[in-house]
């Protein structure tokens, strides 16, 4: 299955996503703030990134801009605990979607399936 990076300063969200994604059969790694997320995303290979917006050190938008500058193909799913234009801006620059917290598991599943169907479609082309 896929390798997924979760970037969130909130432990419960990291745990939830890890448990859920592992249950779905993915390999999960976590970063605890923006800079940590950038380092991990640039130094390792992932198939998708869950990235929170409001984080210490670097916010989610900065993480997305920095990482996607080098790895344009890496899909980003933004998560957001407060309606904010930063998430919209990331989406408008190419992030796959933004999930507003508290999100449901269906939303996560849908977002992932959209990415991977797209991926398989790209591969099959």
């Amino acid at each position, binding site marked *: 299955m896929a390798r997924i990076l979760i970037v969130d300063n909130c432990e419960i969200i990291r745990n939830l996503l890890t448990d859920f994604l592992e249950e779905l059969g993915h390999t999960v790694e976590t970063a605890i703030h923006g800079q940590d997320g950038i380092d991990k995303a640039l130094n390792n290979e992932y198939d998708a990134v869950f990235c929170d917006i409001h984080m*210490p050190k670097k916010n989610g938008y900065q993480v997305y801009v920095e990482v996607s500058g080098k790895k344009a193909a890496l899909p980003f799913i933004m998560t957001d605990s407060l309606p*904010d234009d930063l998430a919209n801006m990331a989406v408008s620059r190419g992030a796959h979607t933004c999930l507003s917290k508290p999100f449901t598991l269906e939303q996560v599943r849908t977002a992932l399936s959209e990415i991977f169907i797209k991926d398989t479609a790209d591969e099959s082309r």
Partner: protein
Amino acid sequence: MNLRKLLNNLTLRAKFIIPISILLAASVTTISSYLLDRQADGFRKELEASGETRIRMLAHSAESGVIFENIYELEDILNTLAQFEDVQFASISDVENSILTEFGTEPAGLVVDHRFHSYDRDTDKCNDFYGNDINDEEFLEFNYPIETRKEEIGRENLGLTAGLEGGQYTTETVGHLRLILQLDKVQEAISDSMITATVITIVVVILTILGLAWFVGVITKPIKSLVEVTDQVSRGDFSKRAELKQQDEIGHLASTFNRMVDSLEQSRDEIEEYNRNLEQKIIERTLELEEIQQQLVQSEKLSAIGQLAAGVAHELNNPLGGILGYSQFTLEKLKKFKERENAPKDIDKFIRYLTDIETQARRCKTIVQNLLRFSRSSRTTDFEDVDINQVVEDTRTFVEHQLHMNNIELEVNLSESLPVIHGNGGQLQQVLTNLIINAMHASPADSIINVFTRYSPPLGEFSGAIEIIVADQGTGISPENLNKIFEPFFTTKMVGKGTGLGLSVSYGIIKDHGGEVKVDSVEGEGSTFVVVLPVKKESSESDTEDSSEIANRQEK
């Protein structure tokens, strides 16, 4: 100087009457005394003339009597004087001054200077003189010579006394005649005249004073009434006018004065009116200022509450995400377990517990989302052109059934000339629904809720605005609650009937649209909510934000 001062202090009437009366009395007295003098002179001259005539005649008659010393004849002559009342005394004497006969009584002690009272032949004048006796009574005395003429050339008849032309004769004095007249009658006449003159003078002066008084009264009466009105006006009483119908200078003065009072009164009224207006304006402005201050305080308070709510929502969303996610996650797992044969007996219970947790977590999610909308930090990117009338129509379809069930009628009046606005139609419909449902909850059965739209076109620096008005005939909002209705979680509804977020969410949505919500309410009569939405000209909102600002927006 003192006289002038005295005159100045006199009333107008006295100023007229006193000097004129004095002048008049003086002139009448002068004239009458002059006339009296003339009259007295006349009397005397008359007396002198009549005395002289009489004595000449007597002297003539007595000529022969004296010559022949015929006393009887002389007595008869003198007795003819008895017919004259004014004869006091008469005597005839011979040339040696021996009295031959006399008539009447000689006044005692009458001073007579005979030297000056003999007949003056050159002037043929009989001298008379006035004298007083010892009783101080005045008499007039005449002396006249009794003469006879003698022919010098031819022998002439002694009785021929008339001078012949060219004839020569000499005159010889043969005796003297003396006549004394009383002046009583003259004095009486003079004093009678004096009394008459005095009486006439007094009557004339009195009549003049009365006439003047009346005449001056005619002149001063209008002045007096003018003075009274002037006095009142000077004390600030403009109610009276000088009522003078005359056409003279005083009438003219009065009408001019009346016009002056008119314009004074008008000016005073204008000033008072201006003062009243000013006070009214000050009161109005003060009220306006107070209202604006209240609005400021209110919006500051709501903005602070909004920031607080945003912070709380942000902090709640992460744990809520955990709760919602894990309950769903566990629920999915339990449902899979349930399909196994060796599933625990209580698994249905656990599923129900977790379903409850998930449901409540979803409810919490809704509340937090509403809080966030109120905090104005909702996304504005999905704004588009919105037809407000369409929003009202959509809302009407949405709530009509519910209103019908409550026997409440909805009357909608839409302005035909509404421009489109830039906004979120769904959110605006949510606001309108909220306002109408609130109105419904406050309204009694069989009442009407009025919804109408109107447009205020741009005026000067103010851009145009659309107003949506929702008016009900319900219970109204108490003044102490009026400031709290937009605060989150404030509700007057029964527990469970409302979250207290409806109006605060509406408030947030309208703030997002750059508008405002105004409310006017009278307890027992109903409430009117006015949603004001500005009609802005299309301004291109920049999507790109300053990178330094973006960098600042991270969690500390």
